[in-house]
């Protein structure tokens, strides 16, 4: 009986959890110039309950906005581990998918999902605000169906992620 309630409780909470997603106010790369237009009066993502929050303790979504510099990658991993479950990672722009225009750069990692469990990618070399908002709505549907389980994947194969991070970050 307990098992059933736990799953049912999760569904109801997922319904409510999707209506108030807090995004971490951390502009890791060039995609961050499209975030202010999404937050401000023209596209206004606050109507979906998405608000930029300050510290990693209070945030649910970690937006990796654009290319992943190695020095930034170390900070992104630390910030991700500070966030509280359930947490979601959104890869923003084609640089998180396959390195984008910096495929040949010595300081940029190519695939974000080797180092962090990514729930959602937004394509585009700097996606438009409309793409960002439709991506958040898609993330809401994923949360609704319980498919946004990046944080569980991170915990399950933790060593694989740590091995990849160690290979690139070197320490």
């Amino acid at each position, binding site marked *: 009986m307990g098992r059933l309630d736990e799953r049912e409780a999760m569904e109801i909470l997922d319904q409510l959890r999707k209506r108030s997603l807090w995004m*971490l*106010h*951390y*502009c*890791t*790369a*060039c995609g*961050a*110039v*499209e975030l*202010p*237009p999404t937050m*401000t*009066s*023209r*596209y206004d993502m606050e109507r979906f309950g998405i608000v*930029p929050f*300050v510290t*990693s303790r209070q945030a649910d979504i970690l937006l990796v906005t654009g*290319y992943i*510099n190695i*020095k*930034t990658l170390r*900070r992104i991993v630390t*910030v991700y581990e500070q966030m509280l479950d359930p947490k979601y990672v959104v890869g923003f722009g084609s640089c998180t998918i396959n390195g984008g*225009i*910096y495929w*040949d*750069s*010595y*300081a*940029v990692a190519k695939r974000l999902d080797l180092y962090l469990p990514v729930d959602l990618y937004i394509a585009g*070399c*700097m996606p*438009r605000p409309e793409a960002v908002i439709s991506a958040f709505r898609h993330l809401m549907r994923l949360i609704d169906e319980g498919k946004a389980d990046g944080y569980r994947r991170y915990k399950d194969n933790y060593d694989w992620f740590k091995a990849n991070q160690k290979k690139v970050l070197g320490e």
Partner: protein
Amino acid sequence: MIRDYTLFIGPNHPGIHGNFSVKLQLEGDTIVSAKGDSGYLHRGFEKLMEHKLYLQNLALIPRICVPEPDINEAVYAMAIEELMGIEVPERAKYIRTIILEAARVNAYLFSLGGFGAMIGIYTLMQWSVGDRDYMLDLFSKLTGARIYHMYIWPGGVRRDFPSGFEEELLGWVRYIKDRLSDYDNLFFKNSLFVDRTKGVAKITDEEALNSGVTGPNLKATGVMQDVRIDEPYAAYPYLDFRIPVLSEGDAWARTIQRRMELELSLNLIEQAVKKMPKKGPVTVKIPNPFKWRIPKGEAYAKVESSRGEYGFYFVSDGGTKPYRVYVRGVSMPHMYPLAERLLIEANLSDAPMIIESLDICPPEIDK
């Protein structure tokens, strides 16, 4: 109260616009020492450009500094034109001036909005970034992209204005002009804004000149130095304008200087649209990109960006790829000798505001 401790206004901090961190040594609330740490946005542009063809670089260079990408294209094009010795057609010069001035207005709206958010007035950011968005629509109508336009290329501009574009542009300029009075009442005349910024982070004019400061930060100290007047490029020789200069040199003066230059740019756009020749070619025929060899030589092309003097030092050895391109970022001297010195003896709650008043663009330092 803990006596002295270290505090990171680190990469993940709303007080930092962009991605770099400042390590502060604090005693109580006053900052004892500040040490900047950048490199979070380093992609090695100068290395990437060395193994790409000239026209392939056109897609790469606007991505150097995000709030104002058009200056990169203009400077890259001007450097190549100087080496090739080609002359840009008249109409293309005017179009380039209009695009650069519109990008400057957008960059000022963005940075003034960010400055308002730093001291807590979010309404200014909502308004200014919202108004900036209408120009991005015009840019995407003209060039196909909102931010990275890749519109100015060596030899002129990629395509001519679509019909009726000038009227829409002037409509946007008029719209921003009468929005400026709302901004003034909301923010620039607000007594609290004056209290928080007057006399904070003050620099004298010779101190600014010695530490390589350019742009509004320098003009706010009373020194009149602007690339548009000292070395006019594009259509600036044909436009007559006078750049107002303040003299206090503190955070207040820098912000008001940006506000005045925003208004000046709006007038410049109107003037350029009026004086622009109605017909005429917009680009010079450039050779086949795969076999395009730039004659051996070096050139330093510079432009007045919204932050200061921005330039490319371009060395070519006659091959099909640039031999060496040095990106002269405006924010390098603003951050390293200047911001670290201004933060000392400042109050902790002023630190983000001081850094934002210098309008530092971290990718220009990291490249």
